């Protein structure tokens, strides 16, 4: 098991460099230099100052040297200074916003599992019944609805029509005057809509996946054996079948990390949440080059971490993987 983990960890390193290389190359090959924006926005800048900027970011060097230069600093967690008027280090800005995004996505994932697994199992147990057909239709619709549209509908209903939940930000104006439970409640009210909006589409896909896994597992011999032993249907379904059907779901959860991170750009933008997605959007709008590369890199690291955790979880629960 330990050898397997070490091997898996080592595999991550080339992938990580591959991702940063691809991102770096794509951004640099796209027409338009990052310094163009700086100079466009500031007409007083002289050609010499512009050259200095290019030199600072190494833009006059060939691409591979630029990449190595950048990589050398990234290893020390130095993503450079933001182009924004505050000129703060990109790393500091990311670190401030990262916890918000991670916590929101973890809550979303927990909610996804909590809804999708029971729905998937129950519709597999009653496959082709009316209940199964209805959930199938709902799942197809949920799967096709854009998350940001669901967000708009939720905002409209809960925020405007019945005016129950706040539709923007993470805290109320009087947040600082509240006690601990008051603050917690305030946060919960603010994240309720973004979490739900981000979860619904994924629940659809995941429950469908759970359902087909269950249907496949139920046909296997060990289930027939369990039934033949005289075990109750409850034990057969929930102990024997569900555990096995759950395994691939762990992998899917790990693979869904890039989607969740990408989705947070839209969600945080809609709900005005000060997380990494919103930061990325602002960086894009101002072409804040170092910040864009910084977020891309951190996003890739999170994705790899998600995949690794999924693999470890899978290995921990399936001895066949460990033996390989």
């Amino acid at each position: 098991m330990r050898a397997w983990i070490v091997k898996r960890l080592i595999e991550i390193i080339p992938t990580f460099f591959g991702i940063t290389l691809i991102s770096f190359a794509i951004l640099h090959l796209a027409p338009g230099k990052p310094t163009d924006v700086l100079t466009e926005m500031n007409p007083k800048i002289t050609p010499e100052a512009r050259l200095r900027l290019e030199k600072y970011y190494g833009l006059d060097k060939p691409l591979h040297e630029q990449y190595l230069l950048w990589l050398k600093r990234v290893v020390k967690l130095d993503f450079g200074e933001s182009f924004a008027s505050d000129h703060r280090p990109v790393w500091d800005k990311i670190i401030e916003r990262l916890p918000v995004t991670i916590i929101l996505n973890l809550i979303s994932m927990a909610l996804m599992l909590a809804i999708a697994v029971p729905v998937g199992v129950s519709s597999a147990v009653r496959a082709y019944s009316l209940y199964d057909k209805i959930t199938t239709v709902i799942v197809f619709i949920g799967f096709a609805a854009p998350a940001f549209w669901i967000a708009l509908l939720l905002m409209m209903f809960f925020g405007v029509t019945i005016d129950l939940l706040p539709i923007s930000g993470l805290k109320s104006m009087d947040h600082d005057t509240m006690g601990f439970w008051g603050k917690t409640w305030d946060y919960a009210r603010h994240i309720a809509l973004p979490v739900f909006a981000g979860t619904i589409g994924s629940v659809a896909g995941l429950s469908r996946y759970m359902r087909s896994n269950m249907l496949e597992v139920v046909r296997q011999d060990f289930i027939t054996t369990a039934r033949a032993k005289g075990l109750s249907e409850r034990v057969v379904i929930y102990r024997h079948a569900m555990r096995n059907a759950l395994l691939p779901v762990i992998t899917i959860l790990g693979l869904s990390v890039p989607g969740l991170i990408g989705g947070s750009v839209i969600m945080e933008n809609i709900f005005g949440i000060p997380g990494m997605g919103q930061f990325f959007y602002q960086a894009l709008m101002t072409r804040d080059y170092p910040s864009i590369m910084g977020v891309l890199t951190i996003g890739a690291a999170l994705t790899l971490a998600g995949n690794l955790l999924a693999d470890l979880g899978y290995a921990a629960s399936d001895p066949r993987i460990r033996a390989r």
Partner: protein
Amino acid sequence: MSGMFISRFRENRLAVVGAGIILALAIAAALAPIIAPFDPAMIDGRHILEAPAMSHPLGTDDLGRDLLSRMLFGARISLLVGFVSAGISTVVGSVFGALAGYYGGWADRAIMRFVDTMLAIPTFFLILAVIAFLEPSIWNIMAVIGLTSWMGVARLVRAEFLSLSEREFVLAARSLGASDFRIMTRHMFMNSFSPVIVSAVLGVASAVLVESGLSFLGIGVQPPTPSWGNILTAGKANIEIAWWLSVFPGIAILATVLGYNLLGDGIRDAADPRLWRGGRGPRG
């Protein structure tokens, strides 16, 4: 086989519904200039944000433009982006997958490592970043979506090619002196056609979703060209007063994506011989 395919497909009511939605959408998009009641770009200061009524069946937007007309023209964008993006990703993915599966060895390892790396990139971030640096024209959007979503097709085609490469008809073609290119295109690709078509159809659905998200964020199709995504941006700005701007374009996106998904699933079920007997197979 094709007769069997068609009868299987028609038995699947959901798939027929999907095909119907897509057909209706294509007709609406093709006839948009004829059936749209207004010029989609006509600004009318006297009819700003009017609720749906006889004069404007789906209401008007914040510049007084007719929502129904804008949505009809938006259907063209959605159709175009979906097909071109999915076309690009299918071609790119098929080429990479075919090369990896056919030649194996180091070519296979290199390509699959590249695929795994691309899969680990939060693609939406990358798309946003690239489009923000390029001009956000519709052609750039289609190219970027296509070039960041081919990995699934590559894996699929590779797996098909791996399993086909030892089959008798391939060996026969080879012993008759057929070139690698001919074996790959005429023999192997033709035999892995149906899963590729399924993934292309599902790819159209996800391209439509990505485009609407980009346009919603203001990085996609640029106003005044109407797209369902950028109409929703106006919907969000006026969420407290104009529900129709948020509801109708969203329904259009949902119906479109649903249509492609149902169609894709239907083709898969109809083309899968394992599901041909006994009527109700396990539908994934």
